């Protein structure tokens, strides 16, 4: 059901929702940028609808809501373990179509792929998604080519309109709340883009043989293995376990998991000192193929959702989409040498 609400009405709804939910949306952290006197757009809790940044892309994705960057799993002593409590409130997440598509990828890994993840599941069950319509694509977006430019899997959608906000609601619970304020019953379709400036072509013959191409060697020196591309990615799901021992009681501590990056040193280290993929170009290849080859082999659809954040964040101006577009020539190169 579609609604149009004023800013004031939206804020009244938000304040009601805040009783049961933490509300996360892309917002501006003023002077919170990496460089002096710059802002950072990323996810944070909001109180007012006008805090949501609609006209810029969040540098980091919403995934930290479902996969906390650092998450305590349990507390331990020498002979006992106590599971960490779940957060008391559910979460409402405002996100764009590409990100909403990435939820499916996170679910694939964390709810399926062998085991269901207890900690993910207990957060996931209490998350409500609000789709933010996209009037236009940003320069680095390539969602159309990845087939993620449109989504119907939302609980509610939101678009800015002349008089406030237009919403399409699919959730009964939210519907009840909205109908208290509804000024109109409209037919609302969330805005979505149908073309992007950045285009990608994933060659149909792409195979692991691409690993033999010289194309990766360029990244050996260009890439600085900082991992930013992984941390901003809404579909990267890796983590590392850590045991922390309290300084005042060395026998007690906690086990937590923190985000990990396949680009960063240490990711593949095994006991005894061996490690795999030491060259940055090989790490790049591992990441790129995960996004556009092996994940699909396993799950039937590409992992990459084309949000373009990895392009935007790279301090060395390495473009992921540009790399994808080199795969075709890379395949030609390795097939010639067969």
């Amino acid at each position, binding site marked *: 059901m579609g609604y149009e609400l004023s800013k004031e009405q939206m804020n009244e709804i938000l304040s009601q929702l805040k009783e049961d939910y933490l509300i996360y949306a892309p917002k501006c952290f003023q002077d919170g940028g990496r460089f002096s006197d710059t802002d950072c757009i990323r996810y944070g809790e909001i109180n007012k609808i006008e805090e949501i940044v609609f006209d810029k892309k969040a540098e980091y994705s919403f995934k930290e809501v479902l996969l906390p960057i650092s998450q305590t799993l349990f507390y331990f002593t020498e002979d006992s373990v106590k599971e960490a409590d779940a957060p008391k409130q559910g979460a409402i997440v405002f996100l764009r179509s590409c990100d909403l598509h990435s939820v499916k990828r996170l679910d694939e890994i964390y709810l399926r792929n062998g085991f269901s993840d207890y900690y993910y599941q207990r957060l996931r069950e209490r998350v409500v998604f609000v789709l933010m319509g996209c009037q236009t694509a940003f320069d680095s977006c390539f969602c159309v080519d990845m087939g993620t430019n449109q989504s119907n899997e939302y609980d509610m959608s939101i678009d800015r309109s002349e008089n406030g906000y237009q919403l399409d609601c699919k959730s009964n619970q939210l519907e009840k709340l909205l109908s208290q304020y509804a000024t109109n019953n409209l037919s609302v379709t969330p805005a979505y883009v149908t073309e992007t400036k950045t285009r990608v072509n994933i060659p149909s013959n792409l195979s692991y043989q691409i*690993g033999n191409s010289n194309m990766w060697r360029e990244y050996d020196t260009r890439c600085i293995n900082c991992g930013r591309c992984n941390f901003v990615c809404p579909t990267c799901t890796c983590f590392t376990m850590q045991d922390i021992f309290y300084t005042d009681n060395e026998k007690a501590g906690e086990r937590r998991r923190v985000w990990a990056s396949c680009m960063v040193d240490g990711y593949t280290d095994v006991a*005894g000192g061996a490690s795999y993929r030491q060259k940055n170009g090989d790490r790049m290849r591992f990441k790129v193929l995960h996004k556009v080859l092996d994940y699909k082999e396993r799950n039937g659809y590409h992992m990459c959702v084309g949000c373009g954040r990895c392009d935007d964040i790279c301090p060395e101006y390495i473009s992921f989409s540009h790399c994808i577009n080199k795969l075709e020539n890379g395949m030609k190169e390795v097939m010639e040498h067969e």
Partner: protein
Amino acid sequence: MNKNEYIPFLSEIVEVIKHTEIEYTFRMAYDGEVKPGQFFEVSFPKYGEAPISVSGIENGCVDLTIRRVGKVTNEVFEKYVGDKLFLRGPYGNGFDVDDYKGKEIVVVAGGTGVSPVRGVVDYFAKNASSRKDMSFIAGFKSKEDILFEKDFEFWRESMNVVLTLDAGEETKEHKIGLVTKYIPQLKLKEVKEAVAIVVGPPAMMHFSVLALLELGLQEDNIWISQERKMCCGIGKCGHCKIGNQYVCLDGPVFRYTQGKHLVD
């Protein structure tokens, strides 16, 4: 809500077997189902977890052979019989002895790679009638690095055992040279039907498989076990993924036909 796989359970150390200065087997109380080649995530105080493969299965116990590498596992070496360790698992697919029953079997293992195959070798030592001829080629760096030394005596009784050291002097018990030196010398009766298991460091596995193929074994009849950084053990953390396979879920045991395409 599904089970919280991350919460470990306490398991008592039933016995400690010292193989070398740095390699011990901890026999841990465990009475669930488990297969050789599977692994447990063992919590090491002050370090965290590490995947340790099951090196033996006894009534109500599993053997975990642990190598003291750096600070990783030192703390465990201070633990003794009666103490407890936190475990999770078993994880991974492990070896299925049914795959090898009724067949001529070759097992090639190097160093700590002997741990995951020990259960298979032991099974077929005790159940010799369930298979045809069997050879076990095991390589260690030196005499001091030999694991399961006593087991080798027992295994020799029912199969062709080649215990080889990288360097040193040949004796009645040990030969000298890499495992790959002894693969071509195997006398297999029905090479097309024979099955093989290869476990060890990456280079050793690579060349051993090539030698077995050279001998005439079928790719589909060779199994390998991959060592990777298995961190969560349940297909979530991503560290052990190679190609489209998760070593912790889909392995660590792979048929060579499946495993050979995996590029790191």
